Every structure is written in C-alpha cells, then in structure tokens.
C-alpha cells in the first residue's frame, strides 16, 4: 500500500507592480510524498480585487523590464511559427486550435474572481526540494506571467475578437519538467 504524507510549505504574497494594490497574488509551496517520491506543488493564486476584468497570459521568456506596449506586441503580434496570434484570430483560425501555453492561452479573470496556476515539481528522492529549484519556479511565476486590466489592453486590441479562445478553467496545472528543459 502506498503511503502518502503531506507537508504544507510557506506562503509568500506580493502585489503586481503594474497594478499596484489592485491585484493580490500568493505563492504557496506544498509538499507531499507518495512512498519515497516527493512532489512539490508551487501554486500562485491571483485574486482580482479590481473593478474590471484582468487578462492573464504566460510568456516563455521573462517579461522583466518590458513596457506594457512590448508585452502586448510580444504575445499578440509577434510571429510564433508562420503566424502571430492576431493573424490567426483574423483568419478565423485561432478558435480551431486548442489553448497553447505561451501562444494562445489567455485567461480572463472577472472582478472578485481568482485564477490559480500550479506548477508540479517531482523529485525521485527523500531530499527536500532544492532551494535553487524553488527559486527558479518562483522566479518564473513572478517574471513570466503577464497581468493586464481591461482598460489598459483595450488601448491595443479589440478584446471582443478573443472571446472564443479564452481559457475556461479557474486553474492551470503545469508540470515543471515539461517546459523547463
């Protein structure tokens, strides 16, 4: 019979600089074991305490230092493959393909709602998660996730055209090994 142990780690909270005192996020690290295999679940919970919709997407590269304009261009207007997201939308093609992390996965978070991004890190030993690895995950959650409120993004885009592709679930789970190669 498999033995399961659960240890709740620590929580760090921070505000999104661009939306200071409007959005609150917590990063929580939970650890559990199944036999000798250690699972670390690093979870970011975003609570939209503003009065307008907030849009969330994830970039493959850090957005640290980018302006709002650069963040929008990078995700919506930059070619990824043969097309940019805006081109696929305009060609009526984007709603025929699934949400793709770093390309077309956009979450609309209404006021008073929340969105949770969980990253699972699995370790094949009894040792606790390395602090370096946790720092990498925490850094990813702080530097690769874009938050933009409705009034800001509306200056660049007609948001109506994206409604068909918004990510539906309130939770997104990512296996750290899948994209941290």
């Amino acid at each position: 019979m498999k033995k399961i142990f659960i240890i709740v780690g620590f929580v760090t909270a921070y505000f999104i600089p661009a939306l200071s005192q409007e959005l609150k996020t917590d990063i929580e690290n939970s650890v559990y074991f199944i036999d000798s295999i250690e699972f670390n679940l690093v979870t970011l919970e975003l609570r939209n305490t503003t009065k307008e919709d907030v849009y969330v997407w994830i970039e493959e590269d850090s957005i640290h230092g980018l302006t709002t304009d650069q963040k929008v261009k990078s995700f919506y207007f930059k070619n990824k493959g043969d097309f940019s997201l805006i081109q696929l939308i305009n060609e009526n093609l984007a709603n025929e393909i699934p949400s793709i992390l770093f390309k077309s996965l956009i979450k609309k978070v209404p006021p008073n709602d929340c969105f949770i991004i969980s990253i699972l890190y699995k370790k094949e030993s009894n040792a606790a998660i390395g602090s370096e690895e946790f720092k990498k995950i925490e850094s990813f959650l702080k530097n690769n996730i874009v938050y933009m409120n409705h009034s800001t993004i509306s200056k660049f885009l007609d948001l109506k055209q994206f409604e068909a592709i918004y990510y539906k679930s309130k939770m997104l789970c990512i296996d750290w090994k899948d994209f941290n190669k």
Partner: protein
Amino acid sequence: MITNTLTAEDAKYIQFDENGNINLELLNSHSSESGNYNSLLGLANAETVINVSLDDHFNYVDENGVAGTSEMSYQPAGTMAPDVNGETISGTSTGEAGLTGKTLFPDLNGKQNSPDGTLKIIVNNKLSEAARAEIYSHEANGHAYIYVTTGGDRARASHNVTTGWIEQNNELKVRIIDSKKETIINMRNR
C-alpha cells in the same frame, strides 16, 4: 494598389473604366514572365466575378446564410517586426498589422462567405500604399487565384495551420510569399 504589384512596364497594360472594371482586352494583349501579372490574368479571365475593394469593414454571410459585418482592426507601422522582404505569410514590410485583408469565397462552406455570389477581396483602407499592395498579393494572388483556378476548391485556397502555428498548405504559402516578394521588389524599383 493592383498596379503597385507589377513592374512599371507591365502596369502600362492595366486600365480601369469609370465603373472600376478592368480592361480585359488590354490586359490580354500583353504577355509577361511576372507571376503577379499572370495571376492577374488568371483572376481577370475567371468565370467568377471578382470584386476588389479598400474598406474598414466587410459584410458576409455565415454557413447558414446569416448575414454579419466584421470591422477591420488596424495597428500602425511598428506593431509587428517589419517583414522587409516579404518572407512571411501575413506580415507587412511596414510592420502594420490587424485585420489587414480578407477574401470571401462565393460558397457557404466557411464561417464567413461572400454575401452576393461574387468573390470579394477586401483590403484594409487604413494601410499604407506599400502594405495595401502586399496584402492584395496575399489575398488575390494567394487565396483568390487558387480558388478560381481549382474550380472553387476551398481547402486548397485556405490556410491549414497546425498547433505549432505552421502553415501546412504549402501551395498557398509558396504562392503568397512569391507574390509578396515580387510586389516588394516592384515597388522598390519604381
């Protein structure tokens, strides 16, 4: 816009009457090695009526014949990385972006189709002169040309994109990029 896709020599054989109809006799009187000129020949001589316009919106009918209107969004130069040599499918040499162009086929097999039985090519009227010619190249010499020369084969004339966002319709991709490259060279040489 159409003459900007051609060399100055080929453009001498392009003439429109007061209703905007192309002078077919003059067009057919000239032969050229140009891909863009030969695409125009193919379109102008097609049985399907082709309507080219500059606009900021277009009307369409969906697969059930229900009418709709779509506004054509526009983002100014510098929004996208400029595609200086016409090497991408949908970019412009100026970096302008948005809903830059649309081809509406005269059947009911897509989400947006022509409302009146003609094949419609609509190019965003906010685009610069250069970008208009490049987007016309994409819509007319890519989508429309394949559609009319294959007897209305919508699949061959349409994008087919994988989850990696790579164009799988190589025939369309090659036609579009070849035409855009030619247009950019012809505009540079004017």
